[in-house]
């Protein structure tokens, strides 16, 4: 078991997740929102690592690898969507994209 207290590490994961959530809520630029989602995914992965360290098992790190894979796929599709929105609407404002019409 590590010398770092698990409560502090889980608290760090929670704070990072909350910061990402706040950023998703207050920002209107789509790229900023994508970055905030990355922060939240990273915080979730940190929580898995903390749990894996607490019980000295590799499962937490494996979950982190899966989260990493999903984040990579998500950011590639998300950036393609952002490019498409920018070409269609000529803006990055997410409120401008609330019309569901091609």
């Amino acid at each position: 078991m590590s010398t770092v207290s698990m409560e502090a590490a889980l608290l760090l994961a929670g704070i990072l997740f909350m910061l990402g959530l706040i950023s998703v809520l207050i920002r209107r630029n789509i790229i900023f929102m994508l970055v905030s989602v990355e922060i939240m995914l990273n915080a979730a992965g940190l929580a898995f690592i903390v749990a894996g360290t607490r019980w000295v098992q590799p499962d937490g790190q494996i979950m982190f690898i899966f989260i990493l894979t999903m984040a990579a796929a998500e950011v590639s599709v998300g950036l393609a969507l952002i490019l498409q929105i920018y070409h269609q609407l000529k803006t990055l404002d997410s409120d401008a994209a609330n019309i569901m019409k091609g």
Partner: protein
Amino acid sequence: MELTFYIAATVAILSTVMVITRYNMIHVLLYLVVSFLAVAVVFFSLGAPFMAALEIIIYAGAIVVLIIFVIMMINLSQEDVQREKEWLQPAVWVGPALLSAVLLAELAYIITAANPTQTEALVAVDAKVVGLALFGPYILGVQLSGILLMAGIVGAYHLGRQKKKVIHRFLQERSAAA
């Protein structure tokens, strides 16, 4: 090791706060890289060195570079020399540089001062155990993430393609007449 964790956690929280309060996108990405590096140091202090390396390579390397490419593609028309000059002011890079210097000092401390005989309190789950579990009981998950990555590639290609509108010439004449 415990102090290392707390300093890295402070750096992570500070840089994430800077991420969500800046307006310039490049500043945001600079602080985002610092935040990922700090979380990598946290992983290292928690006894997951392989995950720290993956965090730096994939998050701070690949994903941030991908976002920078998209920003460059979008902002290409408005770019000018004056703005380039503004970006190189010391006020831009001094914050991320200071926070990164804290992380570098921590790394130097871990490598030099940490006594190998003292680390039995910290049982590291090393990469070999992770690899054995990944390709043993979790092999289905590996295959599923392979399918996910394939879907990501195809989806990104399909969405990012510039669709050229092809109109049949009869319809073209009709739309020109109308």
